[in-house]
């Protein structure tokens, strides 16, 4: 390709690195390399699912033991509106990352950068909401995991409700006695998920740099595609976390 670029005063257009990409030397052809990279990523996604399965397994064990308590705790501590907003931005970002991959397949560098930037903004929005509107108010009120948990306003709320309805105070408090386990699991699950979102942002920052340097195009977009797959699993895990914690 020796197209004349009018913007550079008749000089030949600079070749982007992806145009010369074939495959790493230990591969027989580019197709094998592409398939292997994708297979490797799917295997990694399997490990991610299994990692989070530990959280979900613990969730079901304790929810089956204390179903009422979990219902109450979810209503009291978590706001479904915030969770819903975050679900929406994550779903949107899953869509934009696909558009970035599509742009790479079509060789439109500026589009790759644009859609990755939107993805980054969505991820950033998610984390800011998580930290500012969910974690911080809980930290202030000592609604922390396990032994660090304090009933605080929740106890006052429950006792007030008990007095108004003629329920024995001890019985009422007994019903909320497992709040800290609900919150423990909420904290560790969402924090681990949040770390995954953060890792996703770092990875996409690297992708943006590589895209800017012209590494992605129709001949070479597997890294972008694999990062997109990772982003989808982070999204899908949240799709399970949201109803299980916010909507019970």
């Amino acid at each position, binding site marked *: 390709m020796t197209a004349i670029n009018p913007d550079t005063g008749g000089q030949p257009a600079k070749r982007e690195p992806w145009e010369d990409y074939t495959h*790493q*030397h*230990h*591969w*027989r052809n580019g197709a*094998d*390399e592409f*398939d*292997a*990279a994708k*297979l*490797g990523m799917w*295997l*990694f996604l*399997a*490990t*991610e699912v*299994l*990692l*989070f*399965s*530990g*959280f979900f*397994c*613990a969730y079901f*064990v*304790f929810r089956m033991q204390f179903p009422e308590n979990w219902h109450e705790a979810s209503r009291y501590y978590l706001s479904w509106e915030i969770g819903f907003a975050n679900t929406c931005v994550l779903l949107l970002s899953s869509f934009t990352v696909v558009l970035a991959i599509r742009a790479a397949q079509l060789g439109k560098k500026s589009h790759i950068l644009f859609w990755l930037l939107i993805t980054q903004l969505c991820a950033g929005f998610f984390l800011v909401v998580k930290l500012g509107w969910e974690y911080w108010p809980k930290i202030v009120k000592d609604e*922390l*995991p*396990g*032994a*660090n948990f304090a009933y605080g306003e929740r106890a006052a709320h429950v006792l007030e409700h008990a007095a108004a309805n003629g329920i024995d105070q001890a019985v009422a408090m007994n019903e909320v*006695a*497992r709040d*800290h*386990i609900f919150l*423990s*699991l909420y*904290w*560790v699950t969402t924090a*681990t998920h949040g770390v995954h979102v953060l890792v996703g942002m770092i990875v996409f920052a690297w992708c943006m740099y590589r895209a800017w340097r012209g590494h992605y195009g129709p001949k070479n977009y597997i890294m972008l595609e694999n990062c997109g797959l990772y982003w989808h699993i982070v999204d899908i895990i949240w799709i399970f976390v949201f109803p299980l914690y916010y909507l019970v």
Partner: protein
Amino acid sequence: MSHHDVSYLAPKETGWKTIWSWIFTVDHKKIGVMYLAAVLLAFLLGGIFAIALRLELWEPVKTLADGTVTGQVLDLGAGATANNWYNRAFTLHGTVMVFLFIIPSIPASLGNIFLPIMLGAKDVAFPKLNLFSWYVYVFGGLFALYAILAGGVETGWTFYTPYSSTTEWGSVTAMVLGAFILGFSSIFTGMNFIATVHKLRTPGMGWFDMPLFVWALYATSIIQVLATPVLGITLLFIVFERMFQVGVFDPALGGDPVLFQHFFWFYSHPAVYIMILPGFGVISEMIAVHCQKKLFGYKAIAFSSIAIAAISFLVWGHHMFTSETPAANAIFSALTFLVAIPTAIKVFNWIATMYKASIAINTPMLYVMAFLFCFTIGGLTGPPLATLAVDIHLHDTYFVVAHFHYVMMGGTVLAFIGALHHWWPKIFGKMYNEFWGMMGCTLVFVGFNVTFFTQFFLGTQGMPRRYATYIEEFTSLHQISTIGSLILALGLFVHLGNFILSLVSGPKAPRNPWGGLTFEWEADAPPVEHNFPKEPVIVHGPYDYGTVTPPHTNPGEFPLNDERPSA
């Protein structure tokens, strides 16, 4: 000369460049050799702890009438009692041996070196990830080392809660994080091997043309990828418990300690097969080569590896027969018996291969036979433990200790040392001394059986595991076991000396000293940087002994079937 005809071990122009070429290598052979060095170092460390345990158990701890205490060997002070030191020694023995030695032992060292070569490939699918996994391993190992130096750990390698999540002793958090990091190394190796097997077989090589070591590594990799993340989350939970008191496993906070056991064994039982399957793989290779006979039941051996991998996920509950409901116990007991079937298929096939074969007597084959003897004992003591009524008596006794050492050490470690001899000439291009190899094998075999057979008796008589002392009646059995462990250690040092001597002054190895037919015997000894000068072509099966003349051998050195004198 280009990199197409230079040994991968050849030094570069300058010393610095040579060092550089190792620490930043993406060559699977160099990474395999670095893994080999690392796991052998871990084996030494774990072995030192083992000998410390056996020395403490030389005599029971007794308090005499005048108040003096006798029989304490590990009284090293530093604010801890002899019992604390004993607890640390058995915990670190277990942790180092399991996470740092035996899990990466065969796959990450020999597997790394030979999987691509056996497939006729230049490298594994993801060479950089391969190097990264080695650094992750070293990083995790440093965490473990820090934990050992900063007070050690007393929880046992199983880290049972709530003790592990609440104890103030030592540095549990560092050790648990170390094991968590090591898990990633294992996952990366597994992913790499699966993708390599799928995508880098030489053109024309179908699944049933692959050597059985590759099948075994494939099955192992599946378990590594699917089980290790569950250990990861379990260990992460312990760290959360210790740092934030989340209380999921702590009954004082309303948590469930048995949940921890389920999580832990959901990984750690399949992990047992991560440890043993590669051992099965190398035994299949060695037995065919050193018997010069087509392997009996190739497909049965290949599929039994996959069957073991599948069943391994269904039997974790048999570690918890004393803490589960009777219904769960019955199910897990029945499922556990299933494992015996594919395992027995393998053993029968190996023995059938040896039948009427021309068996070479050398160090690798001696190890194969030692393996068959010891592993069969280890395997057959499994069903009694899977039997509920018997297990209630034997649970947490030396019978269990002897059982899993017969499987892990008598199985995997014997296979590993045998395979190291088998492939040593190929990896380093030097021969080892056969006499001292066989001598070492004899010492290891005798020492191993003396150490651990006695422990079956101790276990049936009620000696519980993890105690620094015992009743006087057990003294002589414990002393026999300790003597055995010293013979075993001596045998291992004979091997070490033999290997070092081979590296320093061993004669140059021929390309195919045993008459093997798989691709690695076509390569140079040691192989060139890209394994083969040009891509090998598959013209015969991996075990067509007796009908195909092995490459690079002299005529008549390995006679074909019709050249052999008829019986």
